[in-house]
């Protein structure tokens, strides 16, 4: 259903939700940033020396606070997307080149987990009509997830191909997979399906929701094209060819 087709009361409620989300994310950011600054001053020894045990506790608090800052940032993005404030600038983007660069940034985290990270793509570069920043945001989110959920020694493969008028990017991982009955819900924000994975990995439960929205805003899509428990998943991003 389009926004304009919803009854007035439902639209008002939705607007209030967006406003609430925007205010909450803005109001949380400042104190969280302050906490980060104070904690880092302690860790840097700027306010006197502390024992290793205290330092360890402060470091844990710093990490937890950084998680919250990241969560607030994502909530803010969601609020902006829902209220139509995110600007998409469609340009001719060399998807092959960008994917190689993005993968380069993930070499170290994959190596650290003993994972193999490979790509398969045609020799000829594939160009899409897309928003450069959004493509990076989506790919970073998908690859972060793949690395996070794939166990040590597993494999992640990115396959780029053309299909009719679209460029297709498959991100295959060796993660725990998702049960078939839950597949449709992985793109919902804070859905129950991923809640257990979130607990395990400290994810935010927003990344896939955001990524799909961004893909759709570029006339593309993001789907879970394959998933099997204990085998792995394939997330598929499609973008219009240019």
């Amino acid at each position: 259903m389009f926004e304009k087709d919803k009854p007035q009361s439902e639209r008002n409620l939705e607007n209030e939700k967006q406003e609430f989300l925007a205010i909450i994310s803005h109001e949380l950011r400042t104190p969280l940033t302050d906490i980060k600054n104070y904690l880092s001053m302690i860790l840097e020894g700027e306010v006197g020396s502390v024992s290793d045990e205290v330092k360890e506790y402060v470091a844990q608090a710093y990490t937890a606070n950084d998680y919250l800052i990241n969560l607030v940032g994502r909530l803010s993005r969601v609020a902006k997307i829902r209220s139509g404030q995110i600007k998409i600038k469609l340009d001719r983007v060399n998807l092959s080149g960008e994917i190689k660069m993005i993968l380069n940034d993930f070499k170290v985290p994959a190596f650290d987990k003993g994972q193999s990270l490979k790509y398969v793509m045609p020799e000829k570069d594939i160009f899409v009509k897309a928003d450069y920043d959004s493509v990076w945001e989506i790919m970073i989110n998908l690859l972060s997830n793949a690395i996070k959920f794939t166990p040590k020694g597993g494999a992640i493969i990115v396959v780029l191909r053309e299909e009719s008028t679209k460029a297709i990017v498959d991100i295959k991982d060796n993660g725990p997979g998702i049960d078939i009955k839950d597949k449709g819900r992985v793109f919902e924000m804070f859905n129950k399906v991923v809640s257990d994975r979130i607990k395990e990995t400290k994810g935010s439960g927003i990344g896939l929701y955001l990524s799909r929205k961004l893909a759709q805003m570029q006339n593309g899509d993001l789907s879970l094209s394959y998933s099997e428990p204990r085998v792995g998943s394939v997330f598929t991003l499609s973008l219009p060819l240019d």
Partner: protein
Amino acid sequence: MAKKILLIDDDVSLTEVYSQKLKAKGYEVVVSHDGLDGLQKAASEKPDLVLLDIRLPKLDGVMLFRKMNADQVTAKIPVILLTNVDEEDAVVECFKLGAIDYLIKSEMTPEKVSHKVAKFLSESGAE
């Protein structure tokens, strides 16, 4: 002589920790918590660098920057922006006005900020 940094931000906690860190690194730090006061201090203190927040009471950061540019006394003072992640439009506007860099506050620590300041001042030959 110690280089002078003007720190303009309405978040008192942030200015407290940033200024403590910058002072520890040997800088003289002047703090302002609103746009009008910040503009006056830019003219009276003639700092070597301004760290400027975007959302400020009385006069926002973009307007303050415009007014600095319009005044011969402050026009050449370098400005680094202190921003939040959702202020892209203001950042673009400030780059047009001549901002040399921007720092997203939630991604910074006092140590990183002092590194940025030192890097800029040494590259610009001011240190």
